[in-house]
């Protein structure tokens, strides 16, 4: 009888020994996924050159009007509103193409999603235009360092 039961006990011991590290590994994976889990949609998925700057901030982004600033153009709500190069080369501070649209949404929060290579001059002019249009709540969107 002893001979019959001994091999079975060895197999059970081996299984229990292998299960513990696997559970540890899965727990680590679970914690990592829970920490980095997000349902944020991709930003400008059709534009492969667009990349958000990276930030250590942990403040979540809430849904609001989106204003994308790239080196090529300025997009309001996903629709191209103005060319960026004109406003980089010219001294004009107010971006007329987005002024009226922002004025109609004055009081609403605004998300500015800026390309990491776009110059501050563009952001400065966008913020000036938003301020003149009466937009008070402005958030700059960045990619979290804990992104996958």
């Amino acid at each position: 009888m002893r001979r019959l039961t001994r091999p079975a006990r060895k197999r059970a011991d081996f299984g229990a020994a292998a299960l513990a590290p696997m559970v540890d590994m899965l727990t680590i994976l679970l914690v990592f996924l829970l920490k980095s889990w997000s349902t944020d949609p991709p930003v400008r998925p059709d534009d492969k050159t667009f990349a958000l700057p990276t930030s250590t901030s942990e403040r979540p982004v809430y849904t609001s009007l989106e204003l994308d600033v790239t080196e090529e153009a300025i997009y309001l709500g996903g629709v191209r509103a103005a060319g960026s190069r004109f406003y980089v080369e010219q001294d004009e501070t107010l971006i007329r193409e987005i002024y009226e649209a922002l004025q109609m949404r004055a009081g609403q929060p605004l998300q500015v999603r800026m390309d990491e290579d776009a110059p501050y001059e563009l952001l400065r002019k966008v913020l000036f235009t938003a301020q003149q249009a009466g937009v008070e709540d402005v958030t700059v969107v960045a990619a979290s360092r804990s992104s996958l």
Partner: protein
Amino acid sequence: MFLLLPFLLLTTSVQKLVGLDLRIPSSGDLPPELPGAVEDLTVRAEGKTLTVQASVRKSDVGANIGETEARVVEVDPAGEALDLAGLQAALRTFKRLDPERTRVLLIPGDAVPGRDVVLLMDAVRADRDGELFPEVALGGIEAGPAEAPAAPAEEAP
């Protein structure tokens, strides 16, 4: 756990978005800060060179009430990158002078790229020792009352 893991793997997004609140200094509705030892604090960025400018109240016995002295700290770039540690060290000295102060004005140069603007905004908010100046106002935006742009001229018949 075996159900949760595939669910998380399938539903998670590659990019997690975060927000950085902005204060536009010229909007005129910012509440005044409590008076402290540091009256004005500005960080300027030109290329990779950073300059911290502050007006610090004199505490000498012979100084008049409200008299300030201007202090300027230049932070040279660390190789090809911004010296964020040097900037935070300079800001920490002003934070020690005025621990109640939370506001800083950040004025990047026009050519400074967006990634450096966000790096600077992160750097002035906190360092390893704790909070620095979490209320960041971006400068270089002209002040003035809201003015509607001129209407386009009517075309001649």
